[in-house]
């Protein structure tokens, strides 16, 4: 091990020695790098910093005056449609969400308010994070075989892959609540039961 490190070091010393056998190679490498189409010597005018300095200040000033104009117009209630900043003032003004965005789950209901879920266990099986736990029970209606006596979803484990939604044959679980701010004080309260998934 020691020997290898020492060997490698000697190689490097040889490589970087300006009078060593690799000096010419390094010079040619540097020359090749220098000949890249986007690499060139700066002209005298460019070396004075002035062109880039002015174009940079032009760019920021353009943004400044454009935005200031619209901020002032907004003060007088004009041109509300054009924004002077790209900021979303988050808690008061949430960002628009895509309709396809996967957000917190909910269980859909039948007309009588009972869950649409038939406890087929497809979502529990497909879930890569294993965060769903269904307790099945026999449904009193002979047309429906089973119903979930309890439906536990641990959002602390969920990875929001959306497989449960994709796999559900009854359209019983959806991720379209647009709820993003799931923050709790304990892991225990991250675990949602059937009631919370259906009501909240």
């Amino acid at each position, binding site marked *: 091990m020691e020997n290898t490190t020492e060997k490698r070091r000697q190689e490097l010393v040889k490589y970087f020695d300006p009078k060593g056998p690799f000096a010419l190679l390094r010079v040619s490498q540097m020359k090749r790098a220098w000949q890249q189409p986007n690499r060139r010597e700066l002209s005298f005018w460019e070396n*004075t*910093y002035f062109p880039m*300095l002015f174009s*940079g*200040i032009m*760019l*920021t*000033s353009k*943004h*400044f005056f454009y*935005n*200031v104009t619209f*901020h002032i117009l907004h003060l007088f209630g004009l041109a509300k449609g054009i924004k*002077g*900043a*790209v*900021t979303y*003032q988050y808690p008061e003004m949430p960002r628009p969400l895509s309709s396809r965005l996967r957000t917190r789950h909910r269980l859909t209901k039948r007309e009588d308010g009972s869950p649409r879920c038939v406890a087929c266990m497809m979502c529990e099986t497909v879930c890569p994070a294993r965060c769903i736990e269904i307790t099945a029970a026999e449904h009193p209606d002979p047309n429906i075989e089973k119903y979930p006596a309890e439906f536990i979803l641990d959002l602390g484990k969920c990875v929001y892959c959306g497989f449960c939604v994709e796999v559900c044959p009854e359209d019983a679980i959806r991720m379209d609540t647009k709820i993003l701010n799931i923050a709790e004080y304990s892991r225990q309260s991250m675990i949602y039961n059937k009631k919370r998934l259906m009501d909240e």
Partner: protein
Amino acid sequence: MNDILIKFILSAGTLFIMFNIAGLLTWVERKQSAVMQDRIGANRASIFGFKAMGLFHALADVLKMLSKEEFIPAGANKFLFNLAPYLSVTFALVGFAAIPIGGELILNGHSIQLQAANLNIALIFIFAMMSMGVYGVVLAGFSSNNNYAFLGGMRGAAQMIAYEITMGAAIMGVIMVFNTLDLQALDVAQGAYMFGGWVPKWGVFVQPLAFFLFLTAATAETKRTPFDLPEGESEIIGYFVEYSGMKFGMFFLADLVETVLVAALMTTLFFGGWQVPYLHPNGFDFPWGGHIAMANLPVVILGVLSFFTKVAFFIWVLMAVRWTLPRFRYDQLMNLGWKILLPVSLINIAITAIVITLLR
């Protein structure tokens, strides 16, 4: 007695105005950078629901600074450590004494120059005070017993000395053209006109090269980006790394006060100070013929307004530069200072001398 009272009011007024502008600059800096970068900027601090576009953030900052713990590191030289921020702020503020904020006001037959200290060597006085400012930086860096602070102090000393020379050499041209060191007399002299009365004889029109040299050197003198190597937030925190509470706040304030001082100096030296184009002591006198007679008081008020408008413009320019350009590398900084700016300023002096001799 009357004279002393007038001087007292003038100096208190100047100090009050400049201090407030510098305090306001914390807000200006945050807002301007925000607007430049398509953001909104600080807007949350409120008093009874009034937000006033985030203006209260300046107040909140000061309160925060005052209520923080003041920490002195073990092994630091306590006396120098405590002295450094005061030196920084004091020498930055004293410079304003010699800057004329207005012309000659005649009140009850008294002639009052709107300038806190009517020195005949005002320019040298200001430069002396700006040079003394380097002691704040150096002492802060050396007394903190911290390697990074030491590095920052070294860089600050080297940089400020390098650019001080260019700054001095750049204004030599202006002094030679107007033949005075008295800033009030300099401003009065800039009220003359060139090219058949169309172009005012401002410093920037007679010494354009000196203006750019001075702008660069003065930006370096304020120790703000692109010349903020003594601070270098991302590598060494700089000469004030060990400071906390209001002592850090004083370094911060000294930075902003220096920005105002530099803006005021540029206005005074190169943009006619309190001069308004075509405004003479007895009213407007346009080169295309036409005269509006005015009393002394409105003329002086217009002059003061013009001075502060120009100062505000230069503060805007300095802020725009600070939020646009990235930092220089240290060798680039020294190259620019010693190999480009200094020779160019010397050439500028030589050319000015030749032209003045030929025109005589």
